[in-house]
């Protein structure tokens, strides 16, 4: 399985001193899997902060002893290992990155109320999008139809929260943008498996997604939608065969 993204994002404007500070004894390792939306969140956060890190692709059918040692509870990626200590759960990792590398762009608002709202919506995305989206691409018939309807409702709610803003974070990305944008890689699969058009249902959300993709930190962190579609289609076929078999 090849990686579609670089693991060092060049920032032409960065001074040599800044690069040296980031690299100096601050070893950062990311245990990841190319198609994981949760892994993508961490890649984006690291890229936004200009952090140099070592990417290690896990084989989820044969998890490394390092992964099992670093995340014994969930045994899942992503896991960020910083100075030898593991941090698990993608949004917890993203907030950790934001809190440790504070001299870079901020992924959280400064006002406590705005912070709470950002955390609320990141939590909402975590509770809804993966599980409902998966039902759209993995199932068929009534289950799929119900999931489609619910997913569109979730997207419309998020559109409402976005309003006229450029990003959920205003002019820059915040944790809500980071939480949601990886699911853009699912759009082609969702539309094809679900037989509907996301841009027709949620044009503003698609507009937002395209603005995110205009940022190198995002586009360099996400695999191509068609590659994801092929991958998810394989999982779908396996799942449906298992149900019938």
């Amino acid at each position: 399985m090849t990686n579609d993204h670089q693991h060092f994002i060049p920032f032409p404007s960065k001074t040599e001193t800044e690069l040296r500070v980031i690299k100096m004894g601050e070893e950062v390792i990311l245990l990841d899997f190319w198609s994981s939306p949760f892994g993508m969140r961490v890649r984006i956060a690291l890229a936004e902060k200009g952090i140099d890190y070592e990417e290690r692709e896990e084989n989820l059918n044969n998890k490394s002893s390092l992964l099992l040692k670093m995340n014994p509870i969930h045994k899942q990626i992503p896991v960020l290992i910083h100075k030898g200590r593991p941090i698990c759960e993608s949004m917890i990792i993203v907030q950790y990155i934001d809190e440790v590398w504070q001299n870079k762009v901020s992924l959280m608002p400064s006002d406590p109320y705005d912070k709470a709202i950002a955390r609320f919506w990141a939590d909402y995305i975590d509770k809804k999008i993966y599980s409902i989206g998966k039902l759209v691409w993995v199932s068929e018939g009534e289950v799929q139809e119900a999931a489609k309807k619910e997913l569109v409702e979730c997207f419309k709610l998020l559109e409402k929260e976005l309003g006229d803003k450029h990003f959920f974070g205003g002019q820059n990305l915040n944790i809500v943008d980071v939480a949601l944008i990886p699911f853009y890689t699912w759009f082609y699969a969702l539309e094809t498996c679900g037989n509907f058009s996301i841009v027709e249902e949620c044009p503003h959300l698609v507009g937002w997604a395209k603005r995110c993709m205009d940022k190198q930190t995002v586009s360099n962190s996400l695999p191509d939608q068609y590659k994801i579609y092929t991958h998810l289609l394989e999982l779908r076929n396996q799942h449906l065969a298992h149900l019938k078999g």
Partner: protein
Amino acid sequence: MADLEMKLLGLWCSPFSRRVELALCLKGISYDYIEEDIQNKSPELLKYNPVHKKVPVLVRDGKPIAESLVILEYIDDMWDDKPAILPQEPYERAMARFWARFIDEKCLPSIWKAFWGPKKEQDEAEKEACENLKALENELKGKKFFGGSSIGYLDIVANFIAYWLDAIQKTAGKTILTKESFPLLSQWKVDFVACKVVKENLPPWERLVAYYQIRIEAAKASNDDGKIQIY
């Protein structure tokens, strides 16, 4: 801190609601408490939490915040002149958040299912619940509270295990959190509930047990096996 209107929409028996009350009390923040009827949600609740329509909701100067873990962090961010609830160091904060999420997403649902889930799934759920509690037991090694020498964020989040679990065990007539299997958690429970501010923010014991009894009976009567909501 300017004295703006503070109100909490809550439910007397909800551990999630009581978490917020505990945090507000720890910070010495006064607020108006509004008891919600979960079977008959008020227009105010639906207005302040249209997304989830649940308690607790904290409203400060007309601006609502929902989801207990989000509210706890808000309280800590907002009243940072008072003793902190969350750890200050980023790695310790990440660990506290990790375990809080573990409690809400793994521990509580497995405990609930072990007692009140579909009959045929209870044994499996009980095994899982014990594994989850073991993980928390390990987190307490060398500490009196999850927060160290005094209660903190994770102690507040684990409130269900300290008190509500006993009520469930009593109504079900079965115990999973024993002193033999979980010596550290058992001691932590005693120490947590003994804290003055915690004691003042717990639902009355007899009333809680009676309430759980009524809910189980109602669920049995309506053939709602496995559909008892966690609140």
